[in-house]
């Protein structure tokens, strides 16, 4: 019967593709798998591409799924290298963490705003809608505060919320922005606004006088690439890669490549802060 032959053929194709697929999967000598933080993944993808170009035959697959997953996958061997956009927790001290870059947030005000600095508590109150006028802050004018917030899901927002212990629905923003450039533009044209962007995107523009902004110091620490790189600036986090044991061979070579000056331009392109060594 015709149908029987068709079914047999389909089944044979299925078995064949499975077998050939499995044998293909075993060929993994020059292959690295990275999993973890969706903030670090775009950066590592680009670093991996450059590494692949330098070492033909090597394949590095970067997957995402969150920092905790990255650490767990590195621990149980699912991945050769994990990625985590946070410092190691106490239970993770036995793993090897390597910081390849840092991510920092700068609180930005318009250059003409007389307010010189804000405490963590004041910033929290501004974003929670408890302080709504600049006159309630030291040195501030009698003007309404325009709160500029990032769109949901952005990694910068995540870091911001975590630092100020705010919840996404507590914030009542007047303007919601997507990316850093939009944030810089919004605050540049609204003299009474407050916003935050990743430090890498704002620092050079402010330093070269392109955008009429100022970066607020955090505590007594100035917001600069240098203080972030040295880990002094509080509103920042390390971008780590994780291995289970002391790296060897290809893993070791790739990690030292990712930590070398050869990738600083890539790190800056992703608006992160390279660490000078």
């Amino acid at each position, binding site marked *: *019967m015709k*149908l029987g032959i068709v079914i047999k053929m*389909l089944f044979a194709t299925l078995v064949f*593709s*499975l077998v050939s*697929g*499995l044998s*293909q*999967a075993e060929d993994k000598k020059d292959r690295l*798998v990275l999993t973890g933080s*969706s*903030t670090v*993944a*775009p*950066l590592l*993808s*680009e670093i991996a591409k450059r590494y692949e170009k330098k070492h033909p035959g090597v*394949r590095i*697959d*970067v*997957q*995402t*799924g969150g920092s905790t997953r990255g650490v767990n996958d590195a621990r149980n061997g699912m991945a050769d290298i994990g990625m985590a956009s946070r410092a190691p927790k106490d239970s993770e001290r036995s793993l090897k963490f390597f910081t390849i870059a840092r991510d920092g947030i700068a609180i930005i005000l318009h250059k003409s705003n007389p307010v010189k600095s804000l405490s963590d508590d004041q910033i929290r109150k501004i974003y929670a809608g408890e302080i709504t006028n600049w006159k309630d802050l030291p040195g501030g004018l009698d003007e309404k505060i325009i709160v500029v917030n990032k769109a949901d*899901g*952005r*990694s*910068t927002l995540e870091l911001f919320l975590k630092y100020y212990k705010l919840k996404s629905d507590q914030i009542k923003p007047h303007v919601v922005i*997507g*990316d*850093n*450039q939009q944030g810089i533009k919004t605050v540049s044209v609204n003299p009474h606004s407050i916003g935050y962007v*990743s430090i890498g*995107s704002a620092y050079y523009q402010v330093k070269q006088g392109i955008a009429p902004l100022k970066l607020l110091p955090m505590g007594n620490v100035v917001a600069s690439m240098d203080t972030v790189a040295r880990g002094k600036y509080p509103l920042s986090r390390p971008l780590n890669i994780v291995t289970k044991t002391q790296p060897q061979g290809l893993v070791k070579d790739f990690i030292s490549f990712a930590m070398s000056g050869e990738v600083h331009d890539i790190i800056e*392109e*992703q*608006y992160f802060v390279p660490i000078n060594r």
Partner: protein
Amino acid sequence: MSEQAVRLERGSHYDLDNLATFIAWSGFIVVVLIFVWILGEILVNGISVISWEFLTESPGNAGRSGGILPILVSTGVIVFICLAFALPMGVATAVYLNEYTLKDSRFAKFINISIDVLAAIPSIIYGLFGFVFFNNVLGFGFSLLSGGLTLACMVLPFVIRASIDGLKAVPDAYRESSTALAMSKSASLFYVIIPSAMPGIIAGFLLGIGRALAETAALLFTSGYVDRMPSGVMDSGRALSIHVYDLAMNVSGGDANAYGSAFVLIVVLLVVNSMAIYIGNKIQRRQLR
């Protein structure tokens, strides 16, 4: 009845009619407005990004520059694998349920409930299932194959439901006539009943493609995030919807290309839909002639 009463009665009827018309029209307009708004937003923001290079180059600088060719290829492979498994299985299950079992049998009821439960499961659960079963237990790793098979599981209940609806719409007279003409059960299935059920099967096909193209969560865990050109079904590859999500959420400065990719996604969806409808009509006409 006086002339005036007739007019009055007619008047109130007209009022009700007008009200019904108004409700129907406003519902229609709201739906169209939402559709036009979404489409317009993506068109306006996306079209400036679209160029031959965008469609034929690999992404660069985490997707901010370059194009989406490897992502288009990966998406195509995933959707193909998904439908290659889901469509035959779905139609076969629907045929079994509608043509071979009694509707009230306990077994048929059990299968029906299972299908409804499967349809209600959130896609992330399918993603986790696929990650455990296809990636780990079967050892496929992050691969287009795992992604396609996971989507096949996810899409299956919708394909089955749509195909059953298609089969139910086939009048019993067709079945009786083919039996009266001494056609075998399989011949009547393949030459009469399935072709007549084609609109339902096409609807299932469309639902399948739609859900497969739109899926992000389930694919992140199974086919993965790698934006290299895949060299086989065992390679990891990034689907278009994941690319849009990643550019919009994780890559600052990626908004322009996110809109561009979303634009391509919608165009692909529209093209596939109209092709499926066209082909479905053709098949139905030819088989029934």
